[in-house]
Each structure stands twice: as C-alpha cells, then as structure tokens.
C-alpha cells in the first residue's frame, strides 16, 4: 500500500504542508482534504514542501489542478518547494512549471508571499 503523510504548520497567515511519501490515487484524498480544510478557513497562502515526496502520479497532480484557482481567486497561491528532480520531471511533463510557482525552498516561498 502507498505510504503518505502530511505534516502541517503555519507562520502568521502562511500555511505549510510537508508531504512525505507517495502521492497517487490511493493517497491523493489526504492532500485534497488538507486543501479543503484550509480553504474552508479562508487560508489561502499555502506552501507545499515536497522535500520528502518520493513519488507523484496524475492523481496527485490533479489535486493541485483542482484547487489552485480557488486559492488564487481568494488572493492567495499554492507555492511548491524543495522538489526532487524525479518529482519535478512529472510536473514538467504536464507543463506545470509555467502554471505554478515552483521554488527552491520554503524561504523563497515565504519571501514571495510577504514581499509588498
């Protein structure tokens, strides 16, 4: 069975999700629930740290596709950081780098959220 966990944290109005393990059709609902929970609380500045995300399939990409417009329409964004080249390659196959803010690390994402 696929193993996947999310650790959440926040700093001021920015929420950070640390993904750990394999994101596929079996585990994607966990990420979906995390996004839904944040959006329901009007939390819309979200950093997704992928340092320990070892695998992603289109079911995982689909969760990002389904919620980015909601978050952006609220004035926020989902920024992805610390992606391994293996995971980045999957995002790249679908042209995500042109559509999503994919950054080196959390610090970069914080700066982009807080810069005037």
């Amino acid at each position, binding site marked *: 069975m696929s193993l996947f966990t999310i650790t959440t944290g926040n700093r001021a109005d920015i929420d950070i999700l640390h993904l750990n393990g394999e994101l596929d*059709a*079996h585990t994607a609902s966990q990420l979906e629930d995390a996004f839904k929970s944040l959006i329901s609380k009007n939390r819309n500045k979200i950093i997704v740290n992928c340092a320990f995300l070892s695998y992603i399939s289109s079911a995982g990409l689909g969760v990002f596709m389904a919620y980015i417009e909601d978050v952006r329409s609220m004035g926020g964004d989902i920024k992805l950081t610390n992606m391994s080249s293996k995971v980045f390659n999957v995002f790249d196959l679908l042209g995500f780098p042109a559509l999503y803010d994919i950054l080196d690390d959390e610090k970069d994402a914080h700066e982009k959220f807080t810069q005037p």
Partner: protein
Amino acid sequence: MSTTKEQSLLVRATTENIAHVRNFVAKCAAECGFTVTNTDEIRLAVDEAYTNIIKHAYQFDETQTVTIKVFCESDGLHIIISDKGKRYDPETYSEPNVEERIKLKKRGGVGVYLIHKLMDRVEYRHEGALNEIVMTKKF
C-alpha cells in the same frame, strides 16, 4: 540485457494495490536492464494505466481483477494490462490543455497523455470481454 522473460501478477482492482502493481513492474524493468530514470517512467505509466482501469473500466468495483504481464525481450519491455470492464475507446482521446483544465477546476484527464509521453508504443486490444493495454518501452 536479458533474453525473453515473462512475469505476471493478478490483483484486485483497488487503489490499495497501486503501489504493489507499479513496484512489481518497476522491479521487472530494473531486472531487464533499464536505467533508474527509464524504470521511473515505466513505473508511472503502469500506475496511470492501472488507475484508469480501477476508475473507468471497473468504476471502483473492488471485486474485479486486473492481470499484469511483463515481458523482457531483446528490444525492450512489453507490458500487457488486462481487464474485463468497460472498454476504453482511444478514439475519444485528445491531448489535454492543462491550463484550460485548471481554469475549469478539472482534475484528471491527463493519465493517458502521460502514458503516451512515457512509453514508446501504446496499443489497445479487445477480444470478447477482455480489454488489454499493451505498452512498450524500448532500450
């Protein structure tokens, strides 16, 4: 590089088995002599094909089964994934516009696209109630 070798797996059509299925084929690919990068591509293509069967062919009916056969041959790896569910019509496939799908808040619809990007050859075969997707990755 190995000569022809067949390995097979029969599993229930449930998302709980996705990791088992993709890792089984990835192990076959590695044993067949594929690089880590190519093995990762094969692993993802198999995940997408198996997930599509669970969702679309069997519509999450976990009592159904899926057979995965892997052939390591001199020209590369051939993978046949079989089901007896609703037939997929490849004529309905068109390359997804991801930007458009995001605007419409639509997910999915990109698995078949990934399979075609990751594999060298993809065929769909049907015989009676049996549906097969045949995927080939060349060395």
